[in-house]
Structures are given as structure tokens and as C-alpha cells.
């Protein structure tokens, strides 16, 4: 890996009282890759992801975006720098439409007097943009852009959330357990969707518990253990069993290299 990482972290520390959730943690995301993050429950993956997406501030350590040190006070900050996160809860307003949700917090106003003085939204433009983004990602099995999000299936909702992130995330997209709540068929569609987003050139951080999904999609895998990065793996070079063994501490990275 000679390229500069697009997003990297060095020596991140986060303590909650006497619990150290992140302990000298490193992280590297390279351009154009799907970088999976795996780790046992309580290993501190979500703490690391929250630090990268601006939801928490680390107590120590440094985050660099395209080589430049950055500091996020909130997810809005991270978003302004092109890092979009799809939360496990999806962060959508169920009663509002797909278009409303895609533009929540960054609405487009009309040009001219109606927009400037009466602050009228350009709904036609927002609908057009939303429809275009969904079409690009092959999500147009959705009936109507004005449909309330709560009328969509779980997979469709996930799709809209990913499309929102893909539409605005210019540098990094973070997906937190995108298939956790989905059935087999819907998971399939979402995995295809993630691959399509990657093919457009935006690197993706994928947090998942599902080993087959991780091994299918990821270009590299970050194994998180006891609050820090244990190692980075390449899916073709290790077996799923080994990855799980590393994650749970049944095996150390040294044992793996000697075995190989």
C-alpha cells in the first residue's frame, strides 16, 4: 500500500470513566476500497467509528483526512468534509418522504424572490435529484419519490439511506451494520448496492458481523480487538475461520504468519 490513506488515525484513545474503550488505536482507509471493520462485541469498534464520523471526540490521538489533520466537533463537521455515515438506525424520519429525507438538513431553496425572501424550497429540483440518485444506484423499484419512508421495506430504507450517503459523501462513506436487520434477499440487494457505490470511486468503511458478507465485499479487513487494531487482513490470504480466531483472541497474528 504505497498510496496515502484517504482517512487515517493514529494513537486514538477514548476513556469512559475507568473503562478504556479505545487504547492507542490506529486505522487506515485507502482510496477506492471497501474496508471492513470486524471485532467482537465490546471490542470498541463503534467507539472508533464514532470518532471517525465525528460523533465523539477522542481523548488523544490524531485523525488525518487526505493527509491533513482534522478534528470533528460533531457529525455535521465530518459531513461538511465529505464523510457520510449511515447509522444502524438509519437516521430517517419515517413519516416524511424519500426526497425530504435525502435533503434533511441541506434543503435546496428556490432561486429568486420566492427562495430568498419567502424561503420556499425547490421541491421539484430535490425530487429530480433524489430520483436521479436512486436510479443511478438501481433503486427505482421504489414506487414514488414522495412516498413516506415508513411505507418502504427494510431493504428499501437501507437503500435510500445508502443513496443519501452516496449522493453527498464525496470522500468517505461509513456503513454501520447495513445488513444486520435484513433478510437474505434484501441483504443481497444491499450488498450489490454497496459494490456499486464503491465502483463509483468512493471508499467505504463497512462495519459488519456477517463474515460471508465481509469476505465477499471487502478489499481489506481491519480486525479490532481490545480497543485497538490487531491487524489488517486481505480476504484472499486468510480463511474466515482464521479471521474469527484472530477476532476472538484464539489466535495471534504471529501464529497466522508462521502457519502461512
Amino acid at each position: 500500500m504505497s498510496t496515502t490513506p484517504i482517512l487515517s488515525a493514529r494513537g486514538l484513545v477514548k476513556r469512559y470513566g475507568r473503562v478504556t474503550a479505545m487504547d492507542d488505536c490506529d486505522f487506515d482507509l485507502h482510496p477506492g476500497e471497501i474496508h471492513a471493520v470486524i471485532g467482537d462485541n465490546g471490542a470498541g469498534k463503534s467507539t472508533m467509528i464514532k470518532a471517525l464520523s465525528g460523533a465523539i471526540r477522542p481523548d488523544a490521538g490524531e485523525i488525518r483526512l487526505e493527509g491533513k489533520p482534522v478534528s470533528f466537533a460533531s457529525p455535521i463537521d465530518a459531513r461538511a468534509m465529505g464523510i457520510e455515515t449511515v447509522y444502524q438506525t438509519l437516521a430517517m424520519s419515517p413519516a416524511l418522504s424519500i426526497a425530504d429525507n435525502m435533503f434533511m438538513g441541506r434543503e435546496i431553496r428556490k432561486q429568486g424572490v420566492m427562495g430568498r425572501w419567502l424561503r420556499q424550497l425547490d421541491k421539484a429540483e430535490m425530487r429530480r435529484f433524489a430520483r436521479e440518485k436512486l436510479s443511478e444506484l438501481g433503486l427505482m423499484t421504489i414506487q414514488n419519490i414522495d412516498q413516506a419512508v415508513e411505507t418502504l421495506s427494510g431493504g428499501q430504507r437501507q437503500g435510500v439511506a445508502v443513496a443519501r450517503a452516496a449522493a453527498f459523501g464525496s470522500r468517505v462513506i461509513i456503513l454501520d451494520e447495513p445488513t444486520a436487520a435484513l433478510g437474505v434477499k434484501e441483504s443481497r440487494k444491499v450488498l450489490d448496492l454497496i459494490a456499486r457505490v464503491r465502483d463509483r470511486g468512493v471508499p467505504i468503511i463497512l462495519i459488519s458481523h456477517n463474515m460471508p458478507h465481509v469476505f465477499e465485499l471487502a478489499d481489506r479487513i481491519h480486525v479490532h480487538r481490545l480497543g485497538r487494531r490487531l491487524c489488517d487482513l486481505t480476504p484472499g490470504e486468510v480463511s474466515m475461520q482464521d479471521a474469527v480466531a484472530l477476532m476472538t483472541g484464539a489466535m495471534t497474528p504471529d501464529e497466522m504468519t508462521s502457519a502461512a
Partner: protein
Amino acid sequence: MQDASRSGSDLTPPAETVAHFTGPTGIRARIGNLLYNAPAIVPLFVLLVAVAVFGALLGDRFFSPFALTLILQQVAIIGIVASAQSLVILTAGIDLSVGAVMILSSVIMGKFTFDLGFPPALGVLCGLLCGLIFGTISGILVAIVKLPPFIVTLGMWQIVLAVNFLYSGSEVIRSQDIDAEAPLLKFFGNTVEIGGAVFTYGVTLLLVLVAVLAYALSQTAWGRHVYAVGDDKDAAALAGVNVTRTLISVYALGGLICAFAGWALIGRIGSVSPQAGQLANIESITAVVIGGISLFGGRGSVAGTLFGALIVGVFSLGLRLLGADVQWTYLLIGVLIIAAVTVDQRIRRAAL
């Protein structure tokens, strides 16, 4: 908007790009979908049926421009307060202090003008400011101190009402004095007559207010944020909505609207009375609920609230003209409240 430019150019479109926007099929699904998207249609329908039934029973006594506009006059104050209540309930809150803020604002308008000798316009301005300030305080307590809206406004109700009685000494400013010295206080009691139909300025205020709020709620980013905050506060925050600012603006605007209701109240009853409008908070919640706004927030429209207020007005006047005991009105309104919530939930479930 960083990458809007590259959309559609360098991409191989996936297989199923054809956007097919098939609408719901079948008449039942279509009606269900319509009701889901425009929940104000249900109260509008009830309103029209109620007008038709009372019109058939009472003939010209009810179905005249005079009687129909009388209903508007009778619901004007509650309609204005209910508009404020709608905003708060859309954010999944509730404001129990609306009535008290309305009364204190009207008392301040009267007392500042008569006791402190302010010019009437300044007195009115101070009254409006009073509503805005109490609304803002409630908003801060809800949004920043993060107390439940029910508790904040329950407390605020008692505080504002007590201030009202302490400050006014329960004294009424008489109608003749207002006419002689400060007719501006009764501005909203002025009337326009068009062929038997009588519109007070207060009615006009209500209609304009509802139109402005309907526009703001559906056509501006602020309006979308009000719905999003009421729908799911945490999701809205993660999506980039400034929840704190949205909530404070809603309570502050609600307080200001209540102060306007206080001004209109002077025009309606003719005097400044600290005892007036005691039931305004419950009646405003009634109008909001019958109007189809969900008490859990995020659903409904302010037009529905107007219809809700009018439904109550039609029942009150219609039953009175029929000579029925006034308790029948309350009984029917009670039934309507429960029916409105039932219908609302069924529509939503059917649409999902």
C-alpha cells in the same frame, strides 16, 4: 452538492434503472393513500357533513351567511391558539400554557396602556413581547434543559396564570374605557360586512395565520425540520437538523401567536378580563386532535386544526339552535376526539 456534477455521466447504469412510478392500484388503496398523504381531508369531510346535516335540520336559521360567519367569529380565538398548539404538538410536545399566556398578554396590553399610560400601540407591543418571552422560556427549558414539554408547560401555566392574577388584581378594564381611550386594543373586533356575512378582523387574522403557517410548514426547510423533530428527534439530529434551534423557535412562535390571540380576545369580548379564556388550552388541544394531528408528533397539518376548530364551532351553534342541552355538545365532542384518533391510526396502518 459536491458531486452533483458527475452524476449520470461516467456511470454504467445498472440493469433496472427504469424508474417505474406505478401509483397504488384499486379504488380502496387509492383512497387510503390519499388520506395518508392529506390527513386534513377527514376533518374537512366531517365538517362538510356536519354543516349539511345541521343545514338540513335547521334550514335558513343555520344555513345563512350570518350564522355561518358567526361560527367563524366564535372559533377565531380558539383557532388562533390551536394554531400555536399545532406547531408544538407537531414537534411531539404539548403546550398547556397557551391559554394563560394569551390572557396575561391581553392583560399587559390593557394595563400598560391604562395604568402606565403607554400609547396603545406600545402597550400592544409589550403584550406581544410578553407572549414571545414566555414562549421562548418554555422552549429553552424543553430544548436545552431537556425537560418534558408536559411538565414545563404545566408549570408555566400555573406561573403565568398566577402572575396574571397578581398583576391585574382580577380587575377588568371596561369596554367603554377602551372605546374612549384605546380603540386599538379592540382592533380585531372590527367587522367587515359582505351581504349578511360578518367577518371580524379576528377571523381574518385566523385565516391569514393558518395560510402563513401552512406555507411555512410545507414549503420551507424550517417546516420540514419541525416535522422531522416531531417524528424522530435523534434521527433528525443525526441527519443534520439543529433540533435545539427548531424547538425553541416553535415554542417562541407559539407564545407570540398566543399573544396575538390575547389581542384578538379583547376585540371579541370587548373588555380586558383576567378571568377570560380559562379553557383555551383544553379547547385548543381538542381542535388539534379532531383536526387529525398526531399527539406523538410529526403528522398532520395546520389546515386540519382549522377544520377541527370549525367542527367544534358547528356542533356548538347547531345544537344550540336545535335547543339541545349544552352537555350534548360536550358529549359529541368527546366522541369526535376518540373517533378522530381511531380513524387516524387506521389510515396509517392501512397505508403501510
